[in-house]
């Protein structure tokens, strides 16, 4: 029964996305979404994938990565390069072309998988040395990694260097973007409610205590980091192959990573719903404020910075805290309730961002871990 429900849900989601895809991409009976709004919605979808995947590391595991744009770049450039160099051959394997149909579908699937694999590998290489140490180092190392990637891409003429990867084939559609976004949400949600998720939660709460309880902290941290990087890579692949949206090293810089961090901070670090919401706000806001932006250049970034500081001081839990928006209210009352991960009281304590045991404030505490 549960299996059937799952299959039905997946089929319904895919069907709905396919129908919407037609409305967005080609139009039905003379009605088509204005391409400018369609573009904004596409960008929201890509940002949802980025924000929700970053949330896995920054929210669930309590580590702090500042290099999401770097992983997006690795995955994006790999995926785009795969279709530019070998796309036609891959489409030919199923007897199609890149213009549409099965050929384009398979080529896109292969390219996104390659992007995910490349980004995952990069995540592994960066994660292993830095995750063994304190969280602060991860921030600097990931930031540095993002810069290194940017410099390397600038030096590769085959992917456009400073001009950007303008040879990209526009294969990304509304359908792909939202299939990936939904998939990302499902993956991160499932991780959050699994043993893996509990382990991450323990690490976030107190790493030393978690280790003492037998949680293999480094291993779980690296795994979460690798999954998060892979998803960012897929988002990069979608972004780079969106029509007239070429990847550009100048744009995949530190500021892009910060933008994603702001999304999850506003939404609530640790909340998937919050990340989705934050992605929406931060994509729509700059477009809605186009004229304001023009009059007061730079004010938007100042606003982001102030939001970060004020949220940290007055509401470190963000808009949503760790709460999630669920569909359980649609179900019949006799259904078994989904187990709630934390009691509300424990939740509230987490929201303040305090360590569960503040060793500095206890008499018998020691600071030897520092």
């Amino acid at each position: 029964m549960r299996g059937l429900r799952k299959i039905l849900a997946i089929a319904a989601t895919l069907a709905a996305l396919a129908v919407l895809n037609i409305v967005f991409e080609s139009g039905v009976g003379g009605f088509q979404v204005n391409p400018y709004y369609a573009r904004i919605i596409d960008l929201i979808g890509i940002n949802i994938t980025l924000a929700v995947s970053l949330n896995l590391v920054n929210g669930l595991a309590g580590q702090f990565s500042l290099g999401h744009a770097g992983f997006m770049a690795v995955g994006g450039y790999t995926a785009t390069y795969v279709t530019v160099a070998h796309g036609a051959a891959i489409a030919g394997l199923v007897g199609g072309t890149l213009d549409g149909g099965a050929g384009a579908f398979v080529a896109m699937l292969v390219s996104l998988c390659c992007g995910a694999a490349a980004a995952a590998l990069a995540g592994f290489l960066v994660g292993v040395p830095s995750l063994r140490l304190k969280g602060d180092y991860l921030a600097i190392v990931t930031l540095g990694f993002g810069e290194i990637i940017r410099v390397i891409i600038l030096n590769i003429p085959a992917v456009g260097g400073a001009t950007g990867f303008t040879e990209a084939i526009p294969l990304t559609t509304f359908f792909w973007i939202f299939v990936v976004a939904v998939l990302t949400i499902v993956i991160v949600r499932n991780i959050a409610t699994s043993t893996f998720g509990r382990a991450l939660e323990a690490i976030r709460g107190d790493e030393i205590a978690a280790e003492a309880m037998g949680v293999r902290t480094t291993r779980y941290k690296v795994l979460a980091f690798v999954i998060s990087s892979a998803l960012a890579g897929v988002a990069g692949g979608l972004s780079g192959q969106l029509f007239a949206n070429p990847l550009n090293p100048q744009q995949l810089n530190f500021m892009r990573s910060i933008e994603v961090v702001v999304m999850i901070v506003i939404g609530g670090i640790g909340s998937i719903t919050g990340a989705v919401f934050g992605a929406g706000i931060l994509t729509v806001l700059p477009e809605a404020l186009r004229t304001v932006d023009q009059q007061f250049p730079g004010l938007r970034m100042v606003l982001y910075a102030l939001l970060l500081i004020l949220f940290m001081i007055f509401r470190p839990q963000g808009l949503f805290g760790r709460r999630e928006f669920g569909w359980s209210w649609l179900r019949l009352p006799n259904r078994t309730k989904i187990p709630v991960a934390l009691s509300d009281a424990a939740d509230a304590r987490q929201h303040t961002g305090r360590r569960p045991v503040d060793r500095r404030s206890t008499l018998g505490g020691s600071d030897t871990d520092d």
Partner: protein
Amino acid sequence: MDTFFQQVINGLSLGAIYALIALGYTMVYGVLRLINFAHGDVYMLGAFAGYFLANALNLDANPSVLWAIAVTIGSMAICAGAGLLIERLAYRPVRHHSRLTSLITAIGVSLLLEYGGQVVFGATPRFFPQMIRSETYAIGGVQITNQSLLIIVFAVVVMFALQYVVHRTRIGKAMRATSFNLSVAKLMGINTDFVIAFTFALGSALAAAGGVLVALAIPRIDPLMGLMTGLKAFVAAVLGGIGNIPGAMLGGLLIGLMETALSATAYSTYRDAVAFGILILILLVRPAGILGTAVTEKV
């Protein structure tokens, strides 16, 4: 051979810049265990304060060493104030929260200074007035400007001064105690709030002096100038052993030399990657840094 010695001089001049900023970084980290992301931006603020002061005094047209010193001191005072404000308004409210909260706050402050700077000063780079006329000394085929020489000498003096303050004075003792254990230090009657504020003011004043001196040698200043330089200085501090004052100096000079060495090869565009490559390498091989010991000597 001339080329080699010239490159060594180039590397030391560049390294002294990183060292000067790394000294401030390492001190704040030593006391608070906080990566003060905004440190590089206070350095930027220092350069801009110097820019406006020097232009107000019209020093570009009438260069004068005495007035240049006055401008530097003025800029240091302004930035010490800014450092105190930042500590009081942003860092203190989150001091007892998790490290993640402090880190995000620090990034927020850094962004605020950078983009606030863009709104107030404009994004277009400005050029620092020549308060001291540039002079080039040539020894054989090796050339060095008086400004580069000034930076190297100043960095060394600051290193010894800090070492003295931390190890030989009362406030230095209080700083070390706070660093060792904040709550115990408080119980011992140390006014830890004051000690932390003092550390911030001192660190910010040093950053400001660095900003003015560097702007004299390399006149381009813009609101984002502190970002990369600050991060590299942080790596320098980690390389030398974070919290260790001579270590920061050593780390800064080493990174300057390595960047220059790379620039001299065909891979000059990868030089921004050097510092971060080194960071990953240290974390793998010797996380405590060159001069640091496993139990780091704390400031």
